[in-house]
């Protein structure tokens, strides 16, 4: 175990660099367009969220929670959001939420159709599975590098990296949900002369919906954890507050920002889970 011969070294990093360079050179226009799209979407969300006054946010959180969970949860959750404001992290929270929301929307738009494709084709499934495994096991920091190279510093690479990290659960669970629809139900749909798309829209997707909702829930949670990491490449928000606290060894500030992230995580998780529960049919 003393040494490994230098003559056997492979310079993998160089090839990756070359590949990214090649991508930038040949598809620069494409990445610019993607970048513009992401920025535009992000702006819309930020604008809407900054437009709403802080007390209206509290009321909306209260009402939604009251409607789908109960009064106690509604009180607790709106108080949590209120606390975030009191800690002076309101703006950071909104910036964080905007990135999370955009990443989740993009993840769903791409992930659900890919999940459907995985369920439909065993071959596509076989190829995609290891890729998804790799995406989930790879340290999340690693995504920052290509995102940085392709999109530069700022929010866009943050959204991109978050999306890559958060997309596997929604894909996996869409696939799982569709595959778990009982065979007889599919046979019944076909026996009445349904086309494949009718079977998908009228039977498979509605049946898979509770599972897909669980996937979306996980995707949101992963996006929320990734957005903190993404602050390293210039995304402002709660993550940046944590990062700055680490750099200055400011335990107090780090704790404040950390608590806010936990609050957001709790609220989003419980709300999406309850919404998912509404899609369950009598079993």
């Amino acid at each position, binding site marked *: 175990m003393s040494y490994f011969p230098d003559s056997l070294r492979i310079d993998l990093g160089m090839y990756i660099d070359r590949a990214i360079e090649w991508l930038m050179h040949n598809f620069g226009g494409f990445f610019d367009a993607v970048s513009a799209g992401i920025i535009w979407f992000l702006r819309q969300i930020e604008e809407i969220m900054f437009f709403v006054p802080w007390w209206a946010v509290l009321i909306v959180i209260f009402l939604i929670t009251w409607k789908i969970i109960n009064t106690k949860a509604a009180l607790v959750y709106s108080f949590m959001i209120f606390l975030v404001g009191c800690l002076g992290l309101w703006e950071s929270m909104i910036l964080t939420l905007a990135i999370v929301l955009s990443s989740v929307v993009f993840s769903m738009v791409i992930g659900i159709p890919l999940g459907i494709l995985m369920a439909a084709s065993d071959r596509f499934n076989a190829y995609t599975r290891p890729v998804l495994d790799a995406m989930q096991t790879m340290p999340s920091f690693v995504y920052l590098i290509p995102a940085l190279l392709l999109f530069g510093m700022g929010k866009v690479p943050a959204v991109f990296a978050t999306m890559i990290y958060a997309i596997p659960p929604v894909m996996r669970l869409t696939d799982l949900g569709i595959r778990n629809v*009982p065979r*007889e*139900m599919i*046979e*019944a*749909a*076909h*026996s*009445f*002369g*349904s*086309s494949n798309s*009718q079977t998908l829209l*009228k*039977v498979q997707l*509605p*049946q898979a*919906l509770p599972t897909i909702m669980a996937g979306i829930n996980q995707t949101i949670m992963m996006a929320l954890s990734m957005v903190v990491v993404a602050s390293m490449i210039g995304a402002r928000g709660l993550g940046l507050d944590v990062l700055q606290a680490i750099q200055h060894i400011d335990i107090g500030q780090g704790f404040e920002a950390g608590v806010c992230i936990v609050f957001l995580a709790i609220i989003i998780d419980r709300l999406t889970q309850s919404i998912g529960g509404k899609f369950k*049919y*009598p*079993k």
Partner: protein
Amino acid sequence: MTVKLQVEGLTKIFGHNPRAMLEKIEQGLTKETILKEFGHTVGINQVSFMVNEGEIFVIMGLSGSGKSTLIRCLNLLNRPTAGKIKVDGEDIVKYDGKKLKAYRQHKVAMVFQHFGLFTHRKVIDNVAYGLEIRRVSPTKRREMAQKAIDIVGLNGWEEMYPNELSGGMQQRVGLARALATDPEILLMDEPFSALDPLIRREMQQELLDIQARLKKTIIFISHDINEAFKLGDRVAIMKDGVIEQLGTPEEILAQPKNNYIKTFVQDIDRSKILQAKNIMVRPNALVSLKDGLKVAIKEMEQAGISSIFVLDQERRLQGLVTIDDALKALKEHRQIKDILQHTYSTTGPETYMNELIQIATETKYPIAVINDEQKLLGIIARVTVLSNLV
């Protein structure tokens, strides 16, 4: 009777290259060899039969006999490897795309063993599914679905979800869903197997009632011989992908083709299937009114019996004469018509054997089977009925 559906040499093999296996079958290789050596499963092997319009045709077999594979070929949920399926004279195996959809949307509907209901749709929307696929307008759809719901007696359950109903109710939804599109052919894949025995019997009766009104062509799969014989106008018994015997329940009961069928029919309750006309025999001795007493006594002596039925010229049953009365009357120089007895029992040809048991225990004489015009069709010895009780 017109033939609705005709199956010719239907074969279904599962595996990577099923067509290549056809040759092996022709060479006479068995199902087991093909599975072991080539990894292909022979589901059904050159099955042929035909189904008449308006009949209930039951395909009966144990699990693995190929009956479910067979019924799934009839709406092409399984693509046959070889053979023809002619519906109204047209070979549906060639159907593809549009034609197949049209066939499934209009001509045929299926009821499943585990119901196959859409748990995310209310009962009414389940029933209307086939119409929705056929692009019937919502109001018309609802109306037609309601009619089907009425037929199966599910009024008032329309807005429930399937999983809120009991098993029997769920299968009613399955049946209503199949009836809603008003198909000509109904495929029923062990529809009552998942129900408990009491509900099963109720559903069987209900199916017979519905069939009496609607006169669909029904192909019914069952693994229960009692169910098969109760429902089927004709029954095909399958084993290892081939039909072992095909016929009416009475034919199969009376003449089981081999030991396999024999063991099957052993446990069956014959008294519920056999009718008087199936078990009656031609009397080996009869006398006519115009015959003399001496003839009657001689007939009885020859046949070794102690009573004899008396007919008129049109074979109408007039009465019965016992040997004691005949001997006495002969001494007193009386005629047959003077000593006719009427204490025997008669029955129609369609009476089921289990209804005859009571009669057989009460009478001393054979039971006379007569038609509406009082003509004697045959007689049933008491022992024939009573021995069934053992």
